[in-house]
């Protein structure tokens, strides 16, 4: 037998097939109850235009507004209008936010991952005069329905966040199911 087909109760089917190569391979499933997500959500959004008018000493949501190439959104979970990532699969997500500050002479700068409107994880507080590339990485659980993630930035003087897919971007990927 080269494959096993498991039919759903009402429709659909899953086929488990052996590779057409010599040798014996073993697939061992964990002794847990859960859903295996082989293709969890992955997103790469970024700023396509400079975000100006950032006030001094004020944490400001970064308006990541595009997923155009080289960006992507494999599960259509990133809203480029609200600038939020709301994954529809429950699980643990590795999130990276980066922002390039672009003007002013701030002496303190930091960015953060926000979960449901509150700060979840801060990056390093960069103490250096002038624009900097700031970043933060966090591991976050999302419930797959209402939880959402955003990137926020802070600088001690008024300024802006610079556009560019490698300058100011939001990336997230599911690393483990719930």
């Amino acid at each position: 037998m080269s494959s096993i087909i498991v039919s759903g109760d009402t429709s659909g089917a899953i086929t488990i097939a052996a590779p057409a190569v010599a040798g014996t391979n073993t697939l061992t499933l964990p002794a847990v109850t859960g859903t295996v997500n082989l293709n969890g959500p992955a997103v790469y959004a970024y700023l396509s235009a400079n975000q100006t008018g950032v006030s001094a000493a004020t944490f400001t949501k970064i308006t990541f507004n595009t997923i155009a190439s080289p960006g992507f959104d494999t599960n259509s979970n990133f809203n480029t209008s609200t600038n939020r990532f709301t994954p529809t699969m429950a699980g643990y997500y590795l999130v990276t936010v980066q922002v390039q500050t672009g003007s002013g002479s701030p002496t303190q700068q930091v960015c953060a991952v926000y979960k449901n409107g509150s700060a979840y994880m801060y990056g390093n507080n960069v103490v250096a005069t002038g624009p900097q590339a700031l970043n933060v990485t966090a591991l976050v659980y999302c419930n797959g329905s209402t939880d959402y993630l955003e990137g926020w930035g802070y600088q001690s003087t008024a300024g802006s966040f610079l556009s560019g897919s490698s300058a100011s971007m939001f990336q997230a990927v599911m690393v483990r199911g719930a």
Partner: protein
Amino acid sequence: MSLYDKIITIYPSLTILDFLPNVGTIRLENASDGKGDYIAKWEHPTLAKPTEEQLA
């Protein structure tokens, strides 16, 4: 004039350290929704949170 500038004008003794993420006792935010800056946290040990009249 930004909210930060207004607060500094009301309380000149405040410094940027009072507004720092994580360690500051005052937190200003802007949700980029067109509603502008707002005070998300005010936990200063001696200075009272400015009133809407003071900030107007």
